[in-house]
């Protein structure tokens, strides 16, 4: 005879271990990958599921043991999904500048040099967006 409390604890601990595992793999990717651009991939992705697993465990725990629905975890994951790409984008933009400035200590990505923009003009990091383009439209 299995008690329901045991099942709840089993599920939450499984989710916590899964989440912690993914967080560990993401951090290991940060250490292990060869250059900055590759390092970016680990923390932006593997950690989303890492934190997701832990948050899901938190929801389950409060629901099953104290019978309250907690909505804060949902908010945390929404904010995480909104902010993770932006911080990755900022780091990547720094990489673009470093590479163009050819500063000592800046290491080229495994993918090679950043390609020129195929359209007219350069990437928006180097050059202000042109008028009448989708990028500049929000500044009208």
């Amino acid at each position: 005879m299995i008690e329901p409390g045991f099942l709840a604890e089993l599920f939450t601990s499984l989710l916590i271990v899964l989440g912690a595992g993914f967080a560990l793999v993401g951090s290991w990717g940060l250490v292990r990958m060869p250059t900055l651009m590759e390092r970016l991939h680990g923390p932006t992705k593997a950690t989303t599921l890492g934190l997701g697993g832990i948050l899901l465990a938190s929801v389950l725990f409060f629901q099953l043991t104290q019978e309250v629905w907690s909505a804060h975890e949902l908010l945390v994951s929404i904010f995480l999904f909104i902010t993770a790409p932006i911080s990755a984008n900022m780091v990547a933009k720094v990489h673009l500048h470093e590479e163009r400035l050819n500063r000592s200590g800046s290491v080229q990505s495994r993918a090679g040099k950043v390609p020129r923009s195929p359209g007219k003009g350069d990437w928006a990091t180097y050059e202000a967006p042109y008028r009448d383009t989708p990028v500049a439209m929000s500044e009208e």
Partner: protein
Amino acid sequence: MRRLIPHPGLSVLLAVVWLLLANTLSFGALLIGILIGIVLPIFTAPFWPRRPQVRFRYAIPFVALVLWDIVMANFQVAAIILFRRDSNLKAAWLPIPLDLDTPEAITVLAGTISLTPGTVSVDVSACGKYLLVHALDAADPGAEIARIKARYEARLKKVFI
């Protein structure tokens, strides 16, 4: 009406986020949520000169697809981190030609690319027609660009009009 509530979607979203923050469904929390939902969009309206039309009929399946892909992305990237040797890693820069033409749609596409398998969006071109993406492992860059365009951009074109 347009001046009082410039972005109805944003107003509803703010009110819901406030209720989630308060973690209750009490009358007081609802009242403050509605107040925030009305006041904040009025002050931030200058930052959003035009109102993007979102078709929820297409937006909801898109969000579900992206959530599923995020879970899959985690497993793929974890496998690459754990088992792939550096010398076998075929990182690539992908300049993706854009068919989307509103800032909101391009932002959502860039965010989606950053959260899904092995790609991080880096920059948009000054002419607004290309998105620069870094792929962690793309043996065939052309196929990867086609996949992103078919899987996310085609769906986003239906979400934002």
